[in-house]
């Protein structure tokens, strides 16, 4: 499926079904992240069971510590 990820259209691989798969795909599943799908923010528990659909607008922000 094709999704708008942080403002860019991306073709996601077949095996990606829900939000936690995307986080794993970008190797940020072990980091602290905030995820928003189509304007709706998700709690951490919802990452596991929120399925993605074609043309979803996804925003992912991950926390970093440097400064």
């Amino acid at each position, binding site marked *: 499926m094709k999704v708008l990820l*942080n*403002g*860019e259209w991306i073709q996601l691989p077949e095996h990606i079904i829900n939000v936690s798969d995307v986080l794993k795909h970008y190797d940020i599943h*072990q*980091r*602290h992240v*905030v995820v*928003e799908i189509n304007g709706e*923010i998700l*709690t*951490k528990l919802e990452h596991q069971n929120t399925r993605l659909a074609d043309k979803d607008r996804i*925003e*992912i*922000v*991950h*926390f*970093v*510590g*440097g*400064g």
Partner: protein
Amino acid sequence: MNNRYSRQELFLPIGKDGQERISNKHVLIIGAGALGSGCAEALVRAGIGQLTIVDRDYVEWSNLQRQQLYSEDDAKNRIPKAIAAKNRLLAINSSVVIEAIIADASVVELEDWVKKVDLIIDATDNFETRMILNDVSQKYSVPWIYGACVGSYGISYTIIPEKTPCLSCLVETVPLGGLTCDTAGIISPAVNMVVSYQISEALKILVGDLDSLRNKLVSFDLWKNQYSAIQVDKLKKEDCPSCGNERTYPYLSFENQTKTVVLCGRDSVQIRPSLPTIRDLEALEKVFAKQEGTVLRNPFLISYNVEPHRLVVFKDGRVLVHGTKDISEAKALYHRYLG
């Protein structure tokens, strides 16, 4: 009276009234690295009344690529960043009252400093300090502005007590690991972008224009050309231990404070004594001089080089052990040379 603030006063949302307000405000900046340098210079140029800047480190060559307040002389002489920053800031604007503090920002210190200020700007390089800062901000109801960057990526969020979610609401536990300036490097545009976000929000708070605050968690990647801003109000938790109905301020309790910390961007470990100490640097210099290795002392610290390690001892008792990321190795060296 010169007209140094005229262009800022012409900017309508600030105006002469806003400028007057800015000149009566006191801001605390925690950290005088890349973000701290940028934020401090911007606030001082903007005519802030008083600035307290805190840092535990000294200037090194690898800082000069992005830490805009420092020069080669500062790196050569290993001048503590707080001191080097103050000197440069006073040269930029001598009418600002600047307090430079060479110290680790931990609970006791933060609770003391926060009482005097209107706003705190986060320019630290670690989450342990940020979680303490977050609790202190909630306890004393002083807003703070989170900012961080690594590589070409940056992030910022403004935390207003009683209004927005706090950092605990957003991350729940202290984020560990992940990329640091050490592993991923950092480019100055990412720093400057975060500084711009932080200072824009700071100016809005200082002039009292809270309606104009961004109210979103913002992040960007300047190399990957990405930008994101998320409305995170929904993440505010009623039962948050830092900002919820029954607060315990968990990061202010003694048990949650680490005494050793691996520094971001450096092959170094910091060790701080569990009780406040003042080191007699002169006496220590004599001790080191009898050992193999080389010693350098300035009024603020002693640097003792014994290959492949370097120990830097500050007056407030903290020691930086360079040349290792291993906490137990660092502790062993600390005890070997400092008892």
